[in-house]
């Protein structure tokens, strides 16, 4: 009897708590494993907390599933939307398709402040410093000199108060974007990240996040995405949504066998679902199965879903962790029947790369190449945020496609200011079908003060990525969640009019000319000597007068002249 009673009682108790508790929130944990055609496996964790409440000052004084530390920062700085990613490695769009969240190398942060915020720069500084403490990342190096407010690239993804129903009232003056490409992401960022989860890393999918395995990947990126969403269809009520994501790319090419499993990737199987989670699923994209690769899943999935989205058909195996882990730790294996074969790669329809041309440390050109593989024109937004120490010349911008010049549909430019603001450039371009468009701009390399160089100055300076934003007409290789969705589940069968991607190009390493750091004193002395060399004679000339003076001989000359006289005199006498 007791066997039945306790679960029943606890069930009633929990339901009671849920009804009574004002905390109307839920938590989902999901993991998507997607074998990529290049024989890499893309693992994407998403932990979603949705809290049906309004965002005001008192909201975050009590929180249930929502991390209170982050909540307090958000409410103190009146943040409407926050995206923070910490990334190591470069996402290869051609090979890997599009990720769930695009993230540039290093740290990247985008924030929309509430429209009532008066001094956005102050709040921005406070926010980044607080987040630096929360995530042990060097976000405190974010300052106005490396932040921009792009007009086109970023739009709020959540609900925005629109006074009077004006549609385009979004003001980019309340937006800040900054990227710190030099930031190195490691364990010390992952630990605080896991602590924000309701189950910490003790239960659920978060137990798989072991830093030794995660930081061994080809690409890893952790992200925090906070926004306000509608909680009903007509949007009379709002919810706060926090998505914590971890994107990993595992390499199965180099191993002897192509087989992979959860245990191989994360070092351990899954023990239990997080008890606080409503949804606790693992998905495996098995669309590539039975093409030229044949593999089987062990154990077999709880369910299979067919997702048709924007012309792309995906078959997804779903594992419900609760049902599978009832017998203890469980592992999912993917066993290949074939030897190493590469999957079929349907190239992504839009990708880009970027590089510097020119030699020497005096000047160069920044080139961004954008590839359009689609049969129609594509409209894109190109955002370049160039650090102030690389002054660029707007008049030298050339945008060519083959031999044809492309005229941007719109253009925004704010010249940079030394030590104050970066060069901000935004273009809307229409890419011709099946084309490579080349954007280039000339730049100078600045000479900085000796204390402005980082340690190991000859290593060079990093320059953040360019961001290319586009609304793709088809969803080939597309994974990201739709704007109205919160969980991975919502991306299945989610056909929309367009699919938003924000590609990040490579971050670049630029070696600026360096002074000799060892000789400040010498330089000061030598330059001052030159000044003194002018001052002395000019002072003499202007204050003294010329006089004729008899030349006083010293004792040597006297002796000499005396001797000379002695010798010369007798001769004269003889004459």
């Amino acid at each position: 009897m007791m066997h039945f009673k306790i679960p029943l009682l606890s069930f009633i108790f929990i339901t009671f708590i849920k009804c009574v508790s004002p905390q109307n929130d839920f938590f989902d944990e999901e993991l998507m494993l997607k074998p990529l055609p290049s024989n890499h496996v893309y693992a994407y964790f998403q932990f979603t907390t949705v809290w049906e409440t309004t965002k005001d000052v008192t909201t975050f004084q009590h929180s249930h599933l929502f991390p209170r530390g982050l909540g307090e920062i958000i409410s103190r700085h009146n943040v409407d939307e926050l995206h923070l990613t910490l990334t190591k490695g470069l996402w290869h769009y051609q090979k890997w398709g599009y990720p769930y969240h695009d993230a540039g190398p290093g740290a990247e942060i985008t924030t929309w402040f509430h429209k009532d915020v008066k001094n956005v720069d102050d709040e921005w500084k406070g926010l980044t410093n607080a987040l630096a403490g929360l995530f042990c990342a060097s976000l405190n190096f974010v300052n106005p000199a490396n932040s921009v407010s792009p007009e086109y690239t970023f739009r709020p993804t959540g609900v925005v108060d629109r006074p009077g129903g004006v549609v385009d009232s979004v003001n980019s003056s309340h937006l800040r974007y900054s990227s710190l490409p030099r930031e190195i992401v490691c364990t010390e960022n992952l630990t605080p990240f896991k602590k924000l989860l309701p189950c910490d890393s003790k239960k659920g999918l978060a137990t798989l996040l072991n830093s030794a395995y995660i930081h061994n990947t080809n690409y890893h990126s952790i992200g925090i995405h906070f926004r306000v969403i509608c909680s009903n269809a007509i949007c009379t009520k709002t919810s706060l949504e926090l998505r914590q994501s971890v994107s990993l790319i595992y390499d199965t090419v180099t191993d002897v066998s192509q087989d992979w499993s959860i245990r191989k990737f994360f070092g351990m199987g899954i023990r239990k679902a997080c008890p606080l989670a409503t949804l606790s699923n693992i998905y495996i994209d098995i669309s590539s199965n039975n093409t030229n690769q044949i593999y089987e899943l062990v154990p077999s999935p709880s369910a299979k879903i067919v997702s048709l989205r924007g012309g792309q058909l995906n078959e997804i195996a779903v594992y419900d962790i609760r049902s599978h882990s009832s017998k203890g730790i469980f592992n999912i294996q993917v066993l290949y029947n074939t030897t190493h074969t590469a999957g079929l790669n349907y190239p992504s329809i839009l990708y880009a790369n970027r590089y510097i041309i020119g030699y020497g440390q005096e000047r160069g050109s920044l080139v961004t190449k954008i590839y359009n593989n689609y049969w129609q024109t594509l409209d894109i937004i190109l955002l370049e945020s160039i650090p102030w120490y690389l002054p660029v010349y707007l008049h030298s911008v050339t945008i060519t496609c083959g031999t044809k010049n492309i005229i941007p549909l719109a253009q925004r430019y704010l010249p940079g200011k030394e030590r104050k603001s970066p060069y901000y450039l935004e273009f809307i371009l229409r890419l011709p079908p099946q084309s490579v468009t080349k954007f280039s701009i000339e730049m100078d390399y600045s000479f900085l003060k000796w204390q402005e160089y980082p340690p190991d100055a000859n290593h060079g300076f990093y320059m953040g990525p360019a961001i290319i934003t586009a609304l793709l007409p088809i969803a080939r290789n597309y994974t990201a969640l739709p704007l109205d969705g919160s969980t991975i589940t919502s991306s299945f069968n989610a056909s929309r009019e367009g699919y938003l991607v924000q590609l990040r190009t490579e971050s670049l390493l630029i070696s600026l000319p360096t002074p000799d750091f060892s000789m400040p004193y010498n330089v000061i002395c030598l330059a001052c000597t030159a000044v003194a060399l002018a001052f002395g004679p000019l002072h003499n000339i202007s204050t003294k007068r010329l006089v004729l003076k008899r030349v006083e001989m010293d004792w040597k000359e006297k002796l000499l002249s005396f001797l000379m006289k002695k010798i010369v005199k007798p001769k004269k006498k003889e004459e």
Partner: protein
Amino acid sequence: MKKQWLSNFILAGIIRFLLMNSEYQKVISDRVEVSTALNSWKRVTEGVYLYNCGIDPYTGDLFHETPIGLYVFNFIQQHLSQWILFCLFVFTDLLTAVFLGLTAKQYATELVSKQKVEEKLCNENKETRNDASIVYTSMMYVSAGYLFNPYIILNCVGHTTTVFTNLLYSIALVSMTRSIFWNCLSISLLTLQGLYPVSLIVPAIIYITHSSSIKREKNIMNYVIVFASIITTLFGISYYIMGSWSFLWSTLGFILTVPDLRPNVGLYWYFFTEVFEHFRWLFIASFQINVSLLYIVPLALRLRHDPMLLAFSYLAITAIFKSYPCIGDVGFYMSLLPLWKHLFQYTQQGFIVGCFMLFCTVFAPTVWYQWIYSRSANANFYFGVTLAFAIAQIFLLTDILFASVKHEFAVRHGINKDISGNTAKLLLE
């Protein structure tokens, strides 16, 4: 006579034009010795482009010309083709040479008449000279010194705005005795653009005091009023063009606070790269006082009988110590050297200075290449060269000034250096 004069100009024009059309034009205009943050044509192009895009060019780092300059260059870039632009640069340079020639003529005439007075006083009858030929040679040498000065040629080929600044300088010099209005206008334009040339009003005022003794005070007052009103008007026009005072910080503020540390032939760049942050403002203040204020009064008192030499010293001091000097500034005052042909017999360091200049000119591009491109040298090498260049110029200036003092002495007391049969030497006391 005229034939030679004309052939000089044609030859100089051809040299400039050929170099401008060669592949070296870009190399020359990219050189740090030629183009600085203040005068580079690329930056002017950028500023004009931004202005036409509706972006205030002064919000950025790249443009530091005056709003009036912006307006003029906007006109030039929009309406003139590449060829006409080349011709404009060459023509401006040739015009500068003409004005310098006229300045030389005037000065030489002045000098000859002065010497005649002195000879009358001394009752000495030396060998008879041909005054006309003295005037002519001085004129010829000065203009040729400008036309064939390699620094000036590079400056012109590099399309720097110093070409126009030099024209204004030459107008200021030639109008010093002739026209108050043109003198004031050119000096105020120069002041608006480069701040330091404001010192040129001192020799101009001295010239006024020399000319007429009756209405001296009135004339000086007149000059000051004209200058003040012109410069106020120019600031007003600048404000009218831009609609705000933001340009002040990007032009005069940029000159005074030295935020751009790109190497040039001056002393500032490496000094302010390396100086300890704590002392930055102290040194900026002292360097700026050194170049703009310190020598004005002492030199003016000392050289009050020779305002042209005073103007020359101001020009030289500015070219050596200003915050963003270029070889166009150096070349300008160097082409004035033939004015002091009568002082050359008293100079002592001509050879050293010549060697220094030659070596610096050769070494600067070499060590620059080694530092920036092959990375086998470092910044100290280039700093050494600019330091030597500055010191050579200082030697040149002080040598000329010493020579003028000696010349003055010699005119008064004869060149004989004996005191009652014993050898003696000239000393400053």
